[in-house]
């Protein structure tokens, strides 16, 4: 009898255990060592998801950003991808094309009202979604513009090319600043296509022809691109901006310490400006160089790996993350832009009247994602090198022609990247 009771108890315990066992899902996150609150918030998100239901348990593995993309590539080769990946927005098409990722498969109605940048689409399907976005603006002081009698531009009436050049010339001639504008040349890598390709697009050019994604001919070396290149080189030749050897510390503090009159910088660097200048701080829209005003968009996003055995679990996690409360938490913790207006209204910085509200408006009105093509990861590096060379005095037409050749050869050698 006693034996029977014991066996029955053991059976009951094992059945109960099986009933409550959660299936493990792996999640790879790129932000190990990040000094801000993002990593802690991702951990909190995982913990709350695990506690919110009994089917899935997400286990997070963090990587340093420097090594993350290479680690994902190696894991894909070895067939060891996790269930859930985080992916930088412009890189996503490459991973989808290379079969690292599968379509997210979530109801797109849930993404209504989102900013355009955080939704990662490839070949007509959503592969990834972000919980935040970032935006850049011309950061300056109202008193600086008033001192030199320069009009304060607005989203509806941004500076024209002539106005922008005139402002640089006026401020430069005053001799009050080391440089009238800081473009952030101390930053390398993705900063170039993210921050500077919108300027090229505003001239009417682009990194690659977005109608076909099969060539850069005519867009990166056409008349508009040549005009952009000449203008770009002139910024450095006229000492309007620091060159490629800019000190990283100057990039950090140059505007605050009065070295620069204006700075082309992101919302992540805006709070110190507000603290330093208060109501005098201005975050201005990108100038319109003739083809509209645009700024970059898309930051890190979550997606499901192609080899996940539990895509429904991965999807459940991502859908859990797509709540205003998380958008608000990440925004308050990291200073990044929440992806919905309703979440923005609850944040400390982006609520109506908040110090960074303008960035949400900029993101909503001007954001243009970088070229949505698997070849972007190569094109971004080619673009970076070309702009750096032109800044350092290389012939504009030759440099852009060489960049076009390199991009086209890469597209050809990858059979058009599946477009």
């Amino acid at each position, binding site marked *: 009898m006693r034996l029977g009771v014991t066996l029955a108890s053991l059976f009951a315990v094992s059945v109960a255990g099986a009933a409550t066992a959660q299936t493990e899902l792996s999640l790879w996150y790129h932000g190990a060592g990040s000094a801000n609150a993002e990593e802690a918030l991702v951990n909190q998100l995982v913990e709350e998801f695990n506690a919110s239901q009994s089917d899935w348990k997400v286990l997070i593995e963090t990587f340093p950003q420097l090594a993350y993309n290479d680690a994902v590539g190696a894991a894909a080769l070895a067939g060891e991808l996790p269930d859930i990946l985080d992916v930088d927005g412009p890189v996503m098409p490459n991973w989808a094309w290379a079969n690292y990722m599968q379509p997210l498969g979530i109801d797109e109605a849930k993404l209504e009202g989102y900013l355009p940048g955080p939704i990662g689409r490839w070949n007509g399907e959503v592969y990834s979604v972000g919980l935040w976005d970032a935006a850049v603006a011309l950061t300056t002081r109202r008193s600086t513009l008033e001192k030199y009698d320069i009009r304060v531009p607005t989203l509806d009436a941004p500076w024209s090319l002539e106005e922008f050049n005139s402002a640089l010339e006026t401020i430069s001639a005053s001799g009050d600043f080391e440089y009238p504008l800081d473009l952030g040349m101390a930053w390398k890598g993705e900063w170039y296509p993210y921050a500077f390709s919108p300027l090229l697009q505003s001239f009417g050019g682009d990194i690659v022809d977005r109608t076909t994604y099969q060539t850069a001919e005519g867009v990166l070396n056409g008349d508009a691109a040549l005009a952009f290149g000449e203008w770009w080189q002139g910024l450095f030749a006229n000492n309007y901006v620091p060159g490629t050897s800019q000190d990283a*510390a100057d990039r950090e503090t140059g505007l605050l310490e009065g070295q620069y009159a204006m700075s082309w910088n992101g919302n992540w660097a805006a709070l110190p400006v507000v603290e330093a200048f208060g109501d005098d701080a201005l975050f201005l829209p990108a100038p319109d160089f003739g083809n509209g005003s645009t700024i970059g968009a898309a930051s890190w996003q979550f997606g499901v790996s192609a080899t996940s055995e539990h895509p429904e679990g991965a999807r459940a996690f991502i859908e859990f993350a797509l709540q205003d409360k998380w958008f608000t938490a990440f925004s308050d913790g990291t200073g990044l832009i929440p992806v919905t207006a309703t979440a923005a209204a609850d944040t400390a910085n982006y609520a109506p009247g908040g110090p960074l509200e303008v960035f949400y408006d900029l993101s909503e009105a001007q954001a243009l994602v970088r070229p949505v093509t698997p070849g972007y990861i190569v094109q971004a590096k080619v673009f970076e090198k070309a702009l750096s060379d032109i800044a350092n005095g290389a012939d504009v037409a030759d440099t852009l022609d060489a960049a076009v050749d390199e991009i086209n050869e890469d597209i050809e050698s990858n059979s058009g990247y599946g477009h």
Partner: protein
Amino acid sequence: MALVSPDNRGLRLVTRYAVLILVAVIFVFPLLFMGVSSLKPDQQLLSDTNSLRAFLPVGDISFDNYSDAFQRAPIGVFVLNSVLVTGVTVLLTLFVCSLAAFSFVFLDWKGRDVIFTILLATLIIPYETIFIPLLLMASQLPWIGGGGIEFGWLNTYRVQIIPFIADGLSIFLFVQYFKDLPRELIEASRVEGASWWMIYRKVVLPLSGPVIATAAILKFLFMYNQYLWPLMVVQAEEIRPVMVGLGYFTDQLNVPWGEVMAYLTIITVPVLAFYLSLQRVFIASVASTGVKG
């Protein structure tokens, strides 16, 4: 025959010391820069690079970068992992490669020269070129663990160690050194009835201090500086080595240079300690074999 006057001797001595000091400065200043910079805030660190202040512990000096670095990354775990992986690999390399070299030099077996030639040919193949096939193999290899036979070595210590135990360079070093050992000693031992194992252990190894030190240092540096391989095969933070850990100190746009210097200073300590402990035998080996470290 030219006479060397006392004045000439003095001049030569001064010249010699001047050259030696210059060479020492070239080698020591980067370390000095690293150590000193680790004590400075970023802005001062970068502005000091324009002058000799970069090598002096002046200005706003503190250990803040060290405490910040420890908060940013599990440095102790990374250092322990690297020391463990490197230490085990070095020991196994010394054992396996010296045994292989012993076989090449002292044993007479069919195909020995061909195999040795093939082994030497592997020296010209860069490791990076075989990483992808090695990765694919490592992801499928079997292993007997607690739960029986399992497949896949990724995310383990063994995948960081085993592929690097045997290498052509270490075997080559041992072979060259063993060839110079007096054959009479080996022959006398054989006549006395010693087994090959006993000759290896009691005769050859005790005479091989310099080459053991050389092979150990070269392997130590190679393993401790590994970046690409562990990056590809290790996903878990708890078994990550120091060089991959360096990535914790850069993000998309900013590099906290002071923390980077603090991290580099910390992870350089085991290398310096290991080198200094073997320095005397290493130099003896360089002098006797002409091997450069």
